[in-house]
């Protein structure tokens, strides 16, 4: 089966204009099949978020290739990126900060629908439906991000991501800011969405235990490189790379 996402030799230095740029992502290659959950583990500052932003095409890579459903999206710009955004969506780490505080949750969920040309009346109904599917009563559509809890806000963020009808969902530490219960509920929701729609999930996280519970496969990232990959259980039981070993020891 053709992979949904294929990343080959991806590189991105930071800051881009500096004379001695620090490579944030170096020579990263992996693929992801539809319906698969891929964990990406690593410490703070190892380049996880940069990699996520490169794949979601919020930033442009300096070298390497990103193939989405066989299409090379590495160098697309401007208007050409809009169809990519419909297929790749992202849920961010800080739920409230990923919303414009001036708009209601319903407005935010309806924004991708509006941009896809859904008429106004249908938009409201669909937004309410999406919120409900993510476990939020329809009344939440009228609330502002500051009026709901972190967990509720993250559910709304998920609803907004789903509104675009993505094939790939990138969760960038989406559960880090949530309490254990809210986090477990969100994971359950993600899992059911994956099973229902064959959604592929790139699950970025620094918690190995969570990755073991939730992911089919995991990548371990250190200093911008993928140092080890495999089934999470195997990674934890028999880590080969010293960094993975340290991560496992720190988690226990």
């Amino acid at each position, binding site marked *: 089966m053709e992979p949904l996402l294929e990343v080959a030799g991806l590189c991105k230095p930071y800051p881009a204009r500096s004379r001695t740029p620090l490579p944030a992502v170096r020579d990263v290659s992996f693929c992801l099949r539809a319906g698969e959950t891929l964990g990406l583990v690593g410490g703070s500052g190892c380049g996880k978020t940069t990699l996520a932003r490169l794949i*979601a095409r*919020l930033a442009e890579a300096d070298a390497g290739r990103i193939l989405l459903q066989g299409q090379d999206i590495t160098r697309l710009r401007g208007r050409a990126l809009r169809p990519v*955004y419909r297929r790749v969506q992202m849920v961010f780490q800080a739920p409230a*900060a990923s919303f414009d*505080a001036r708009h209601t949750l319903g407005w935010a969920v309806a924004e991708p629908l509006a*941009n896809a040309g859904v008429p106004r009346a249908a938009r409201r109904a669909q937004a309410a439906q999406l919120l409900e599917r993510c476990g939020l009563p329809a009344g939440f559509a009228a609330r502002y991000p500051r009026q709901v*809890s972190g967990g509720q806000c993250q559910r709304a*963020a998920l609803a*907004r991501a789903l509104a675009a009808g993505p094939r790939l969902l990138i969760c960038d530490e989406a559960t880090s800011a949530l309490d254990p219960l809210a986090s477990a509920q969100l994971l359950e929701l993600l899992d059911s969405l994956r099973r229902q729609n064959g959604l592929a999930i790139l699950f970025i996280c620094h918690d190995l235990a969570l990755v073991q519970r939730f992911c089919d496969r995991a990548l371990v990232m250190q200093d911008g490189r993928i140092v080890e990959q495999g089934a999470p259980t195997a990674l934890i039981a028999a880590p080969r790379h010293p960094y993975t070993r340290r991560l496992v020891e720190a988690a226990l």
Partner: protein
Amino acid sequence: MKQNLRLAACLLPAAALLLAVLFARQLCPYDPNAQAFAALAAPSAAHPAGTDILGRDLLSRILVGLRTSVLATLALVAAAALAGTAAGVAAALLGGAADAVLMRVCELCLAFPGLVLALGLAALLGGGLPCAVLALGAVSWPKYARLARSRTLALLPTDAIAAARLAGDSACQLVVRHILPDVAGQVLVTAALDTGAMMMELAGLSFLGLGAMPPTAELGSMMSGGRSLLQTCPWVVLGPGAAIFAAVAAFNLLGEALRDALDPFVCQGEEHEA
């Protein structure tokens, strides 16, 4: 409740000023340009602000002059704020050479004393109220450009903007839906606080003979015309001066009220959860 009272107290002078400006002609007891009375008459029941050297009723001239000054100042500030905001947001979005050029132009304008530059420009343009407005506008937009640019640059890397891009917003939609509403609040507050200062500068240019031309009643030029009489007939200067003072104070209060109302760090009595 206390806050609402404060807001009302701040807005009341501005509202009064607005009414005086809108109904200046109706409020005038006499024709502001009619030389129909004894020259330099002291304030009395018939002429509450006295008369000027040409025998014109000063209260009428102050009211009409206030209208001229306030409308010219508002046009000036609105134009500067709009142009500056557009330039700043564009510079932040375009980046690269366009950003560098725009910001160097701003720095050049800001490095020069504003009033001196405005004086030079107004003289170059030939004097008269429209030229004075144009000259002051040309020196006051960089402030707004820098404000809008820095706010836009701070917004662009946020997750909220990333999410909006992922939602399929074009650059235009991004600006209209997410960037301008954020920038506008700060620009509005700055503009309201700036209006007082601009009114003073406009009056200053008129005082120096580069603003309104006679017989147009304008507060700055009225003070300028009466300055030789300050010791003998002080009302000729004090009346227009008091009007400028009141208008500037009203604008500053309005600015403060707007800042308090729009500042996210001032609690608005709304419940903040999570």
